[in-house]
């Protein structure tokens, strides 16, 4: 029963994957377009493949079917997503705090929470940290991911399989578990990372360094954790896209005497651009939202050094129980994210996604 159009299926499997860290991409051909069309021309692909056009019989006859099909999911989304968003904005105009949780009493304070948030240097510091963190995390994971993807194309199948298995192990590890492993790796006194760095004999004796107690070191170890987790998805997706590039282009370029670097720049990168764009935007969104890893490794410390917007919001709302202020921060955070999401959706549509 091969009624399923492979192109649409690959699209479904790969590119339709805006979820957290989408899935294992693709160790084989079909997922080629994991995060974008495999070919720059794909966006010009004729749209006739849509089976459910307006001429579809069900569209005319049973107009009420979509309504009841959609309503259960719609109900859940309304209750657990739409209502909370409205509520969030509402709470941000109140002084809801721990006392209100018990008494139910709170009052509207208008834009006061926003005024307080914008006047709070800690908010601006958290925002700046978030931007810098996100930038270095995305840069690190995309660059390493590209490198690994390219490396995989140069390997023989056996070695490539090994790399794939390693990537999948790192990828599959739940982030709570990997955060705890990180704590153990970077443990002062007994941590293997300190021991290794001491053995290198460049930095002196680092045995007792407490990474989570030092602003830059805490940030560095979290950065390493995020990059370690993010590379598998990026590498496998880019690899899948890279093997879709027609070999004729490479042959022609090599015949013309192009250097390997030139070939990579003029052919590989050009073909990878749409995929790379989507991956980068998704990575920005994900890394901007990172919470667990920071919380479990450093709790935002030492002295706020790793307090990003997510951590800042959480501390305000659930440690200090200032839910009004937390909501105001969340609204601002979400608005910033909305801009990124718009860019993401636009590039999805551009890459040939039918909406």
């Amino acid at each position, binding site marked *: 029963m091969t009624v399923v159009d492979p192109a649409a299926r690959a699209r479904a499997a790969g590119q339709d994957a805006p979820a957290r860290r989408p899935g294992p991409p693709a160790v084989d051909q079909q997922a080629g377009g994991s995060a974008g069309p495999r070919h720059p021309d794909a966006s010009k692909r004729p749209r006739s493949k849509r089976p459910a056009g307006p001429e579809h019989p069900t569209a005319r006859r049973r107009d009420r079917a979509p309504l009841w*099909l959609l309503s259960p999911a719609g109900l859940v989304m309304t209750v657990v997503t739409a209502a909370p968003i409205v509520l969030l904005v509402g709470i941000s105009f109140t002084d809801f705090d721990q006392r209100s949780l018990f008494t139910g009493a709170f009052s509207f304070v208008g834009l006061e929470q926003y005024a307080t948030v914008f006047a709070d240097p800690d908010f601006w510091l958290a925002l700046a940290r978030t931007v810098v963190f996100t930038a270095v995390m995305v840069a690190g994971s995309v660059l390493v991911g590209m490198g690994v993807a390219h490396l995989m194309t140069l390997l023989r199948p056996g070695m490539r399989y090994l790399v794939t298995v390693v990537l999948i192990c790192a990828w599959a590890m739940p982030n709570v578990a990997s955060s705890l492993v990180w704590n153990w790796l970077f443990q002062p006194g007994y941590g293997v990372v300190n021991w290794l760095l001491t053995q290198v004999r460049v930095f002196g004796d680092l045995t007792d360094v407490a990474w989570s107690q030092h602003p830059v070191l805490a940030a560095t170890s979290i950065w390493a954790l995020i990059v370690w987790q993010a590379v598998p998805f990026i590498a496998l997706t880019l690899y899948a896209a890279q093997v879709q590039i027609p070999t004729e282009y490479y042959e022609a370029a090599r015949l013309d005497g192009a250097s390997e670097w030139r070939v990579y720049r003029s052919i590989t990168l050009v073909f990878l651009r749409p995929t790379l764009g989507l991956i980068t935007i998704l990575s920005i969104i994900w890394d901007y939202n990172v919470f667990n890893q920071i919380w479990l490794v450093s709790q935002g410390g030492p002295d706020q050094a790793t307090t990003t917007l997510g951590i800042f919001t959480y501390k305000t709302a659930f440690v200090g129980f200032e839910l009004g202020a937390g909501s105001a921060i969340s609204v601002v955070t979400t608005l910033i994210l909305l801009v990124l999401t718009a860019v993401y959706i636009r590039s999805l549509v551009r890459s040939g996604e039918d909406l």
Partner: protein
Amino acid sequence: MSAAADTTPPVAARRRRRTARGRRVIPNLVAIVFCAVWIFPVYWMVNTAFKPRSEILTATPIFFPQHPSIDNFIVAITQTGFLTDLRNSLIVVTGTVLLSIVLGFFAAAALSRFRFRGRRAVLVAILAVQMLPGTALLIPTFLMFNSLNLLGTFAGLVLAYVAAVLPFSIWVMRGFFVAIPAEIEEAARIDGAGTWAVLLRIWFPLVGPGVIATSIFAFIAAWNDYLVAYTFMKDQAMYTLPVWLASFTTPTTGTDFGGQMAGSVLFSLPVIVFFLLIQRNLVTGLSAGAVKG
């Protein structure tokens, strides 16, 4: 090697051969270094889990357990409520998977097999909702569940997870729906099939891989989530495994790294094994699925 020099263009031949060999040696070396670095945290978790206490806290790390033991696993399983929390996790995971398949399947059918006003808007909303920061929705959901008495209940947790997973489920299954040719359904209708029959006997099997991808994604999301469970479940008997694992540290005795790593192995193993098993089918099914979080 020298033989090659005798035949036609010697320099070119030698260069070609050297690059051919170089193309293998250097990438292989880089690949080995990469694999060693990337697998190391996983290895270190397993290694520590099997070490007796005396081999864990050593100034010079022990790279292979001298006296491997499963004591850490026994401690993790028997002394810390692991089994209760495993049961809790399974309840929540099952609920999330079932609900997100059913709701997602219906919604995806509506959004792909029918044309109606507002369809595009719904699709864009679905995409946008997915990107919302978890910490932002946490506050209002917490307050809502607080007044609905859903805080600290499995139902509340499942509801929160379904909301998180649903957009993705709809999106993935829609992709499979779009690929089903209209003729199949027309033929079935001519044979007298009603909407339910088309839905369950024609569409459901054809969307199968999407259903599987959705279940995997929902499973992983509910299995891995820490933030929501940590915030909503204050009663220790209601913890799920990630919260259990993160609270493994007891301030009084210091961190029991052996037990913690054994716990991490137990918690990660199902997911890792699963990923490795489906590795070849990642494309059709999961390709979109895993979680980053």
